[in-house]
Structures are given as structure tokens and as C-alpha cells.
């Protein structure tokens, strides 16, 4: 713990994230204006006292939209990452522990998934389900878990080869007890690093899909979708695209700094490179 607090990257990254989290959690309570309320008389206004960040093309308050959007952008990315890592963990562990034919089948399946660039597979899934927030989430989950399944399998094999794990197996430790007492503690540090970096990637991917109109749909506020609204008014009101872009950038930066810092502090460089 002390080592973590001495790591500048961890502290900066965590600082940015805590700051954003407070904004997003408390912001909508403090800022009273309705993010959905349209005001045709105040379209595309620059920042002023009534609207601290100005208004969008429908006269909606950009600040309150930004804060509410944060809940969706960040919330979705976080739990999508959790789903991906968890499924990757389960499948990877199963492959690594089972070995033999089961491992072979699982890994071939993973290879097929990895034969497509993840984003292309995501687009395919969204193509089938039709563009919506739910399809974007489903698409991302389906396309990204194989990466982690493969990494976790590798880590599991390394963990199993450790002498104390072999000793435990010889003396009869099996099943869940083996996983929980001997394998998972070894996987936890690298997975923590990967989780942090993964959240950053997921924010980029999810907001990117919304930017393309394939994720969160109007009128739901989402950072990527807000950027998409803003681009059409770049010539007249360029300030519209600053805040949502900065919000995405800062959250990704926060997770990346945290992940990089954890990687140094926990000393798991080899295991987390891919």
C-alpha cells in the first residue's frame, strides 16, 4: 500500500479518477438544470452565467448533459470491463486447469474470435442487432473477452508450474480450493493492472461507437454522442466539442496512469504485456 502511494503515476491517475467520479456523482445534484430540457431561444450559446458551458443546438444545458453523460459513459465502460475480464478469467482458468482436449477446443475457439480485429467483430454484432446502447454493449462484450481468455490461460499455466502449487497438488489440493488458495492470488496483481488499462480502452471504444451513432442513441447524453452533435457546429460554436472530448481524454488518462503505475508498483511487467 505504501509502495502504491509513493508511485507518482498511481497517485495522479487515482486523483484524476476520484475527481471525475465526484463530479459525475454529485454534479447532477448540484447543477439544477434539466439535461433534457430544450430551449429554442438559447441555442448554441457560448458559456455564460446561466449555462456555464453554453448550450447545444437544441438549447440544452451542456454542463448538466456532460455530468449526466458521465454516468453513462463511465458506468457502462466500467461494468463492460468487469464482464469482459470475468468471462476471460473463467474461460482462461478453465482452459489452463483442464488441459488436454478441452484446452485445445477452447483455445481454437478463442483463435477464431481473435482472427477478426475486435472492433470489426463489434460492428458485425451491432449490424445484426441494430444500433443501440444495448447492442454496443453486447458487441463489445462478445468481441473483447477472448483477448483476456488467452492472457489468463497463459498466466494460469505459469502459476501452475510454480513449485509450491505443484506441491499443493501432489498433497491433494483440488478444485475450487486450489484455484482460490493458490492460483487466484498469483493472477490478481496482473489482472488488476489489465483491468485498469482495459477501462481506459473501453471508454474509448464505447464513446467511439456512440460518436458514430452506433452506441447510445439520442436523446441519451453520452460523451461520444455529444461530440458527434458538436462536430456539425464546429465552424460556429467550437466550444461545444471541447468539454466532452476533454472528459473522455481525462478519464482514459486516469485509468492509463493508474494501470501503468500499478504495473510498476506491483512488478508484473512481463505478465501484462500484449
Amino acid at each position: 500500500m505504501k509502495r502504491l502511494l509513493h508511485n507518482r503515476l498511481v497517485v495522479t491517475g487515482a486523483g484524476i479518477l476520484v475527481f471525475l467520479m465526484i463530479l459525475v456523482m454529485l454534479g447532477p445534484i448540484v447543477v439544477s438544470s434539466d439535461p433534457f430540457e430544450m430551449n429554442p431561444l438559447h441555442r448554441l450559446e457560448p458559456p455564460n452565467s446561466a449555462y456555464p458551458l453554453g448550450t447545444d443546438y437544441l438549447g440544452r444545458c451542456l454542463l448538466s448533459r456532460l455530468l449526466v453523460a458521465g454516468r453513462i459513459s463511465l458506468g457502462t465502460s466500467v461494468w463492460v470491463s468487469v464482464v469482459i475480464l470475468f468471462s476471460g478469467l473463467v474461460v482462461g482458468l478453465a482452459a489452463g486447469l483442464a488441459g488436454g482436449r478441452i484446452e485445445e477446443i477452447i483455445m481454437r475457439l478463442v483463435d477464431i474470435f481473435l482472427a477478426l480485429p475486435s472492433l470489426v467483430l463489434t460492428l458485425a454484432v451491432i449490424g445484426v442487432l441494430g444500433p443501440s446502447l444495448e447492442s454496443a454493449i453486447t458487441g463489445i462484450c462478445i468481441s473483447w473477452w477472448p483477448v483476456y481468455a488467452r492472457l489468463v490461460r497463459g498466466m494460469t499455466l505459469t502459476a501452475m508450474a510454480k513449485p509450491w502449487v505443484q506441491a499443493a497438488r501432489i498433497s491433494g489440493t483440488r478444485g475450487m480450493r486450489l484455484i482460490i488458495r493458490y492460483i487466484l492470488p498469483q493472477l490478481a496483481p496482473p489482472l488488476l493492472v489489465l483491468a485498469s488499462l482495459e477501462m481506459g480502452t473501453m471508454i474509448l471504444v464505447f464513446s467511439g461507437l456512440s460518436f458514430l451513432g452506433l452506441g447510445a442513441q439520442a436523446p441519451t447524453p453520452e460523451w461520444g454522442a455529444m461530440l458527434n452533435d458538436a462536430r456539425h457546429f464546429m465552424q460556429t460554436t467550437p466550444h461545444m466539442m471541447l468539454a466532452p472530448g476533454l472528459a473522455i481524454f481525462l478519464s482514459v488518462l486516469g485509468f492509463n496512469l493508474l494501470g501503468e503505475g500499478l504495473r510498476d508498483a506491483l512488478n508484473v511487467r512481463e505478465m501484462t504485456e500484449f
Partner: protein
Amino acid sequence: MKSLIQRRLLMLIPTLVGISLLGFILLELMPGDATTLLMRRSAGEVTPEAIDNLRRELGLDRPWPVRYLRWVGRAVRLDFGTSFSSGEPVRREIFSRLPATLALALGAFTFMLTVTLPLGVLSALRKNQWPDHLIRVGAIVFHSVPAYWLGLLLLWVFALKLGLFRVVGQGAWQDLILPIVTLGSGMAAFYSRMTRERVIDVLEQDYIRLVYAKGLSRRILIFRHVLKNALLPLVTLWGMSFGYLLGGSVIVESVFSWPGVGKLVVDAILNRDHPVIQAYVVLMALIFISVNLIVDLVYPLLDPRLRPRRSAEAMEG
């Protein structure tokens, strides 16, 4: 060696089957299938008999393995049917736009290499001094910037404010500069760090110390001995990255209105134009697989340790 190639080619079979199943499923899951098609085609009345006729005409009444094999038969000839929205053959539509996307991806890849190599090497040679710190901070920052935001900012500054570029690309090479920078910068950030780490690893090896001891010049040392050994492990990663550039081009093409397949597929998804989506997915998969196959086959030629000499089988066993 021979068995290595054989094994690599054999591994392609399940992958290709998987991809073809995906493409087939994409088309099968088309919402409303024949009815929608008929309505789009004729704009007239849709009677149950007309639907039945069309289903028979399209072979939709046959069991799925038959339909799958038919699909494969057509896909092998790159025949992906007609686009709903334009009424043109998908093949023509997608192939007329493919060069634009490939140019973008190749450009971004070249940009990535020209930025990455000098920065990575500099960073490694000045390890823990200010150029290294600067490059590492820059790498984390550029790794975190969303491409779509970076693209918009570049457009705003360089096209709108400074007037150096056109806002909407028309396919000329000048229009490609901003998209290339946008697409390549995130990856450049990632690889400058990778290059740094590899070069540092190699610099610590004994054989480099030997070269130092022999008194060779620093330039020969870096280019002949360090770079060659440091970059070799990156070649496979580069192959993978090309695929991510293809995927990433979807966003960049949309920002810059670049007329490539990425823009085509986004429009197709929004219009639920399944034949186009299916063709895009299959084609991207084929390109990605081919690039990685080429990388895997070329790799042994680059790495003397994997070159076939006496008997590769003996080494393997």
C-alpha cells in the same frame, strides 16, 4: 520449417470456417428477411404468395446447411449480393472504396513507424533523462486521446483556423495527412514505448557489450546490432496492429468524411444494409488473416534462429 508452414496453414481452416459461419449468420439474421427485401424492391403490395415465391427464388426454403454451402460458393467468388440502399452489387461498391481505406491504413502505419523508431531509440539511449521523460509522458497522453476528438481538434485548428487543409476530403493525397496523423498517433504512442523497452533490453545484452569492447562506432552499433535485434519481436505485433488500423479507420473516416469502406459500413449499419455489413466483415477478416499469415511466414526469414538449416524438425522435437 516445412512442418511449421504446414501447421500454420492447417490452423487457417477452422478460422476460415468460423469467419464464413459468421458472415452467413449475419445474412441469415437479417430482420424480416424476404418481406423487407420485397417491400424495398417493389414498393408494391406484399402478398403471402409473393413472399413464398421470393423465398423459393432466394433458396430460403432450403435447409440451412444447403444455404450455407451456397453462401460459401458465392463468397468464394466474392459475390455478396446487392446492396439494399444503392441497389448496386456489393462487390463493386466495396472494392471501389477499399483502396481509400488501405491507403489510409498504410499511411498511418508508415507514419507510426517513422515517429516510433527515432523516438523509441532516443528514449532508450537517454533512459531516465529529460528526453526520455518527455517522450514517455507524451506517449501516455497520446495513448489516451480519443482519435475522434483528436481528429476534430486537428480539423478545427489546421483546416478551419489556419486553412491549411480542406475540411471535407475529396480523395487527394493532401486530404490524407490529417486522417493519417489521427489514426496513427495512438498506435505511435504505444509503439514508442514498446521500442524503448526492447532497445533497453538489447543494450543490456552481453553481445552488445562485446561490440562496444571491439570499439565499433555508435552508429553501427545502433543500426546493425541493436535495432535489428530489438525490432524483431515487434514484427508480429505490427501485423496485428495493421488489423486494428483497419478497424480504427471506421472512426477516422467518419470524422474526415474519407470515402473508404469504414464510412460505407457505418452507413450500412445505420441503414440496416446487411449484404454490405456482411461483405465488410468477411473482407476485413480475410485481409487481417492474410497480413498475419504473411508476417508468420516471413518471420523465420528475418530471424536466423528460425531459418531452415539442417533440420528444423530436429530442433522442434
